Each structure stands twice: as C-alpha cells, then as structure tokens.
C-alpha cells in the first residue's frame, strides 16, 4: 500500500536516499511516511480484529472497505502529505499553458494542477481516474528547468495518469496486503485452535507461505513500478516528441547533472592512478565506479528513442 503512491513520482530509486536525508523537503519521504503510518494503523486494526476472533468473512469485508477507502482518498492523502495546493490559471498561467498544450495535442482530459513550495525540482501525479487527476510540480522544478524540460516532465506525469498507474499499483499491492492478512490470520487462528501437532505444522507452513508470498509480491510491485516508469518515460517523450528534453530534465532532477565531471581529465589522471582500481572505500568508490544507476538506464532508453526518431 505504501508503494503505490510514491511510484507516481518522477524519480524513484536513484534519489530516494537523498530524499530521506532531507526529510523536511523530500516529497517521496513525506508520502512514504504518511502511507506507512496509515498502513501500520490499518494492519494493526486488522490484527486486533483477528485476535479478538471476528470471523473471516467479516474481516475480509472490513479489509476490502479499508483498501478501497485508501485508494479512494489517495489523492487527498498525497496532497496533504506533500503540502501541494491546487492552483488556478490566474496564479500560474505559464504552468497551465504547458499542461494545456500537451493535453490538447494528445487529446487527454486536463488534470488539476498543483504546486509544492520546495526548492528541490520534482513532480508527481495522483488521482483515481484520468479526469479527476492532479499533476503537481515543485517551485524548484519551474525555477531550475527550461520550459521544454518542464513540458517533458509534465508529459511524463500525464503518461502515468493515462496509463492509470495508481490503479495498477494499488491492485498489485493488494496482493501483498492479502498475503499479510493471511499470515496474521493463520498465526492467531492457529493459536485459537489449540496445539495439536497437525494444526501446528499447518500453521507454520501457512506462515512461511504467507511471508514468501508477501516478499515475492513486494519484489513484483517494485518490478512493475520500475517498468511503469520506463513506460511513462516513453509515452511522455512521445507526447512531446523530444526525448532529449526529458533526459536532460532527469539529469537535473536527479542531480546526475553534477555527476558529469567538470574537472579536466589531465588533472584527474595526474592526481591519482585514477583508472587503476584504487583502494577507495564507501561512497567515493560508489560515486566514481558507479555502474549504471537507474537514471542513467532511463536516459539510455530515452536516447535510444531519440536515435530512432532522428
């Protein structure tokens, strides 16, 4: 349940650590915390219900109502946790123009537009249906990116909306919620049924199965959401027809831009035996010899698109 919302955010794994470090400003962090608290409350409540012995059907009904409610109010929760506020055309005419240009060209419904007051460039989309969706951008995004790059980012978010990614990931995470619930049920159910050897063994088996299911579903959700990011990159780039602009925006948003070095090759070569793998440790090692962080994988795909289009 936690993951489904944050997946709508433009950048995901590459900078999540970064977002956590800046807890007061990180959009991802705020959404994760809000949904984590909600999920804990909600699983705790179900656990209590199971513990006091309410029957299976009743609990299943209550659980599905709660999941539905979480999905139904997801946009409000996201807006609340990020501090995004919906803005009118009078307040942000240029932003409205950008969104309208893309939706008009691609015959999409115009979403509501929200702005988050944050210096860190980022954007996200949320909403249950394409018509009731919200695209939010930070003030930092508008300040630091060029118009065409903002357009590329907005198109990426519109692609998430068009592809109904919030719904897709809600359904995917339903699986893990059910697994968790089964695990709880088998645990307390087993306790109530007494301690005969048979039911004890069955209980352990069921718990293992539940844990494995939960873990596998967690991995699947991650895989699906990574895939959805690539799809949104592709569809977004199709909407604007300019993959390079999205690639450039990704570089700026993720901070990878600063990874493209400014120091001269001759200087670096002179300072240490740079290309012979030295005894560097920790972060230095990771930053210098990082293989292919997700942002680079996404840029790679976008540039392949660019190559195919030119």
């Amino acid at each position, binding site marked *: 349940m936690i993951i489904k919302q944050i997946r709508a955010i433009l950048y995901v794994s590459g900078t999540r650590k970064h977002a956590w470090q800046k807890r007061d400003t990180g959009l991802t962090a705020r959404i994760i915390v809000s949904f984590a608290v909600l999920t804990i409350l909600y699983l705790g409540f179900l656990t209590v219900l199971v513990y006091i012995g309410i029957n299976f059907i009743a609990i299943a009904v209550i659980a599905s109502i709660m999941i539905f409610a979480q999905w139904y109010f997801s946009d409000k929760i996201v807006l609340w946790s990020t501090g995004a506020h919906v803005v009118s055309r009078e307040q942000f005419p240029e932003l409205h123009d950008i969104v309208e240009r893309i939706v008009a060209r691609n015959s999409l419904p115009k979403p509501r537009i929200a702005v988050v007051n944050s210096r860190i460039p980022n954007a996200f989309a949320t909403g249950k249906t394409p018509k009731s969706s919200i695209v939010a951008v930070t003030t930092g995004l508008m300040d630091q990116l060029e118009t065409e790059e903002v357009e590329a980012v907005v198109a990426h978010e519109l692609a998430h909306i068009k592809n109904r990614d919030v719904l897709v990931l809600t359904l995917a995470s339903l699986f893990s919620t059910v697994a968790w619930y089964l695990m709880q049920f088998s645990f307390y159910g087993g306790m109530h049924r007494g301690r005969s050897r048979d039911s004890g063994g069955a209980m352990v088996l069921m718990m293992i199965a539940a844990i494995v299911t939960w873990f596998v579903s967690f991995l699947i959700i991650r895989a699906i959401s990574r895939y959805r990011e690539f799809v949104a990159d592709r569809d977004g780039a199709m909407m604007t027809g300019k993959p*390079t602009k999205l*690639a*450039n925006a990704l*570089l700026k948003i993720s901070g*990878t*831009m600063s*990874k*493209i*070095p*400014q*120091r*001269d*090759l*001759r*200087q*670096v*070569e*002179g300072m240490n035996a*740079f*290309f012979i793998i030295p005894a560097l440790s920790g972060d230095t090692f990771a*930053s*210098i*010899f*990082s*293989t*292919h962080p997700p942002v*680079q994988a996404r*840029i*790679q795909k976008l*540039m*392949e698109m*660019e*190559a195919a289009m*030119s």
Partner: protein
Amino acid sequence: MPKSDSDILFSISSAHISLELNLGLKVSGRCAVTFKAVSGSLFHDMEQDLKRFLASLHPEFDLTFRAVTDQYGYLWIILEGSRIEDLLAGLTATSGIVEERGFSDQLLAAVFEFQSERDSSFQYLIYNFKRNNFYPFVPNRGKSRDTEKEMKIMSSVGEEVPFERDMSLWYPLWDLPLRSLV
C-alpha cells in the same frame, strides 16, 4: 581477444557517417592524440622518431602535424588532413609507436573533432586509452559543457562504437590545442 586501440579508433571511420546524417556533424579535419611526457632519453628518442615518421608521411598521405606541450605536461600530436582514412591512419600509427616503445601507460586520449553544420559549434569524441572507449565532449564558451548535445552524440553512435556508459567518467579536456596554436 579484446580489440586493440587502433581497431577501436578505426570504428570512427563508419561512426562519422552516422554523426553527419543524424546530427549534421562533419569531420573538421583535425584530430589529436595526447600522452604524458616523461624525462629521459628513451622518451626523447621516441618523440624524435615519431616526428620524423609523421613528416615522412606527407607526400603520400594528406596529413600535416604539429606537436604541442600543454600546461599539464602532456604532449599533443595534432593531425590535420582532409581525408578521414588518412587522419585515422596517422592517429593509430602515432599511438602504435608510443605503445611499441613501452610508453603505453602514458597514453591518455585521442580526440576527434567535428563541426556542426547547424550552429558551427565544435564537438568532440574523446577516446580514453585506459577505458578503451569513447565519450562525447561539447564545450561551451567558458568552462561549461552542453550536455544535451553530448547526449545526442551518445544516442547517435552509442551502439556503433565502444561507448562509456558511466557519465561520471566523461572527463572534459578544456582548452584543446587542436586549433588555437596554428
């Protein structure tokens, strides 16, 4: 068996066509190879032989050369000519002689210059001898670079030639002496 430096350098002979078709980048007729100069007679002899060799190419190949030492103590062999095959032959012969004389660790980079038909900016492919691959370098005025143009170069020839995927290793070579000291 891994490809040799000269094999990889020669892949430019086909890649430059893609760059011209996709991005309007034309071979400017200039390229260079640079290596760290060291003191000692072996290196000095090699340098003299290299210059004699390059001078002897002239009537047969359409190729002129200059040697420049930069502020970092790197020796640059800059080649000019109108035919890309001759430029590449000169480039690989130069790096070949350096390697042959036991100075392969000194080899830093080969630089190939392109000029845009669209905005006449100079754009470069840099070959890193330690990594055995290419990366793009597009300097703006001042010490900044045009990453967008660099990424376009990657999109155009990234699959065609061995390419550096890790952008954090795209080290610039500022103040390239390819044109400045004619």
